């Protein structure tokens, strides 16, 4: 079996494992199936990525050649994202087993089936080379995510899920309308084919409207700043395992979809002719500052980190609004680094929720002495989020600042620094409560979490520092990806 034939299995393995999972009884077997599917999918992607860097891998389903059939097409960009998603699923699942046992004691088969569907949907968005197929995978992952969010323990979880459903479906339908307009103008849905035929009709109102519909539609999915309203509630109310998984993958994959459509399908020339860069630049700046401010005001730590996620999306959007190789590199690197860092932070907070049952900051008082390892991990990952040197967060902010300086955008540099300072405040707020304030009076001492929860957390913390020191994997693939997107030869 060649690498090209193996590539679709990155999506197919979790997709096939999902219905099997739904039928399995008990707790251990469904988890084991999900775990195996995630590991196999990650192994496939680890094989695919090195092979796809030089020449894109193309697999035509049912042997129908691409303009007629649907193809999967993997190059440096989506190979990189696909590996990230499958690796995150692999790291999170061992942690999830313990947390899910507490939060969803019954019918875990269905839970893991939905998890696998969401996972395979995200992988599908990443690997597909067909604009309509992307819509289908988008809805597979979204629908399973709505159901997963509604499984959260808070009474308001279904309400958050409903609001997410309304926003998400509007976004997906916007995308569908945009794709429809492109199809009407070009007669094709294959992305590579669209890229060839669009320049001839680029000056028409229909294609420009299609561009706007697609950008707004995917903007909802990636929680672009003014369209982010669904995110904090969903992250705060979803089961812990799902919060960790979504925070590190769902918005990242949507960012990838945006990059693929704007740069590969429409092309950088078209994007530069539309007021795309200006709008994204302003939304990026506002998206860094306002959500950071809201994060500082939050009492519920899951909600605090959710707002922080919206702010981090702001950095990525700022990077890709610069329309330069350095800017796109910073966007891709931050996408990878933020996925790791935010998953580590959410794991720490959710581990505390597991031990104490509360996400409020008051519950964190004095935890530094009672759960030293968990809170140490929180501080270490928090330093990564702030962007302290030697952490992965520093690398992405460094590249982003370089990209801004290249174009003399000093306003952006100032905003990035202010954003980092605000991160110091909201991470510091938690660290201060945990390490300096005395423990809550009248509460039985909280025990340190068990090893099964701590090990995945420290794997991610280690990755935060590893990718801050050895940037070969992240920076090289991100640069290769940025070159592919811009259309320059690497």
């Amino acid at each position: 079996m060649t690498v090209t034939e193996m590539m679709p299995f990155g999506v197919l393995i979790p997709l096939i494992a999902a219905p099997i999972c739904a039928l399995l009884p008990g707790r251990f077997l469904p988890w084991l199936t999900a775990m195996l599917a995630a590991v196999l999918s990650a192994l496939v992607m680890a094989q695919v990525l090195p092979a796809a860097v030089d020449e894109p891998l193309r697999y035509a389903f049912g042997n129908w050649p691409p303009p007629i059939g649907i193809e999967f097409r993997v190059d440096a960009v989506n190979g990189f994202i696909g590996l990230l998603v499958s690796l995150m699923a692999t790291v999170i699942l061992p942690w999830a087993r313990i947390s899910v046992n507490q939060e969803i004691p019954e019918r875990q088969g269905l839970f893991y089936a939905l998890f696998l569907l969401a996972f395979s949907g995200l992988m599908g968005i990443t690997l597909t080379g067909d604009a309509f197929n992307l819509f289908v995978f988008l809805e597979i992952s979204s629908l399973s995510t709505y159901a997963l969010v509604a499984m959260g323990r808070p009474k308001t979880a279904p309400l958050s899920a409903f609001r997410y459903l309304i926003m998400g479906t509007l976004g997906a339908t916007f995308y569908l309308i945009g794709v429809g307009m492109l199809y009407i103008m070009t007669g094709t849905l294959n992305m590579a084919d669209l890229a060839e035929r669009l320049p001839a009709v680029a000056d028409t109102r229909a294609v420009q409207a299609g561009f706007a519909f697609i950008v707004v539609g995917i903007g909802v999915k990636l929680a672009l700043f003014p369209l982010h309203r669904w995110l904090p509630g969903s992250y705060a109310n979803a089961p812990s395992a799902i919060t960790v998984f979504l925070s590190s993958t769902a918005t990242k994959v949507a960012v990838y979809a945006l990059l693929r459509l704007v740069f590969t399908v429409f092309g950088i020339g078209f994007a530069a002719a539309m007021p795309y860069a200006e709008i994204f630049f302003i939304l990026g700046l506002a998206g860094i500052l306002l959500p950071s401010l809201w994060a500082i005001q939050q009492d519920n730590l899951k909600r605090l980190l959710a707002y922080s996620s919206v702010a981090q999306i702001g950095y990525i959007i700022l990077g890709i609004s610069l329309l330069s190789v350095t800017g796109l590199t910073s966007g891709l690197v931050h996408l990878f680094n933020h996925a790791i860092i935010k998953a580590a932070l959410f794991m720490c907070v959710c581990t505390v929720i597991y031990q104490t049952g509360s996400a409020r900051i008051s519950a964190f008082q004095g935890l530094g002495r009672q759960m030293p390892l968990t809170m140490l991990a929180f501080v270490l990952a928090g330093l990564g989020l702030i962007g302290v040197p030697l952490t992965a967060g520093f690398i992405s902010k460094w590249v982003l600042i370089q990209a801004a300086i290249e174009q003399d955008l000093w306003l952006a540099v100032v905003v990035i620094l202010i954003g980092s300072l605000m991160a110091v405040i909201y991470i510091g707020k938690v660290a201060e409560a945990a390490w300096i304030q005395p423990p809550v009076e009248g509460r039985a001492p909280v025990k340190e979490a068990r090893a099964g929860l701590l090990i995945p957390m420290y794997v991610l913390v280690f990755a935060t520092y590893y990718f801050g020191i050895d940037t070969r994997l992240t920076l090289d693939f991100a640069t290769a990806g940025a070159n592919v997107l811009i259309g320059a030869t690497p």
Partner: protein
Amino acid sequence: MGWLGLFNYWIVVVLMMIGFYTVVSRGNMAKKIIGLNLFQTSAFIMFISAGKILGGSTPIYREGIEVYSNPLPHVLILTAIVVGIATTAVGLALAVRIHENFGSIEDDLLSEDDSDDETST
């Protein structure tokens, strides 16, 4: 083509705006889902209208026919309709759960924020 020739597209625009306005302006979850359905349906009609080719025959291969209508949009929209039904079903199921929890499906009256202490129960 006069405006009558673009009749389908006028319907698309009108339906799209009615649906979108309903989703945004109504608090009642059942009405929101109805609006969402209208909005999706308008996108479906747009695709299907685009499949019609003037003077084209039904897309079944026959002797003596040169021009066929495009069948692909119909196939795409079949998929999209299935997705729409699934979304409606999940949305209504969530509305039922919300009604069980709060005794109301008025979105404006409910707040996500008061849930923060519920994690401890």
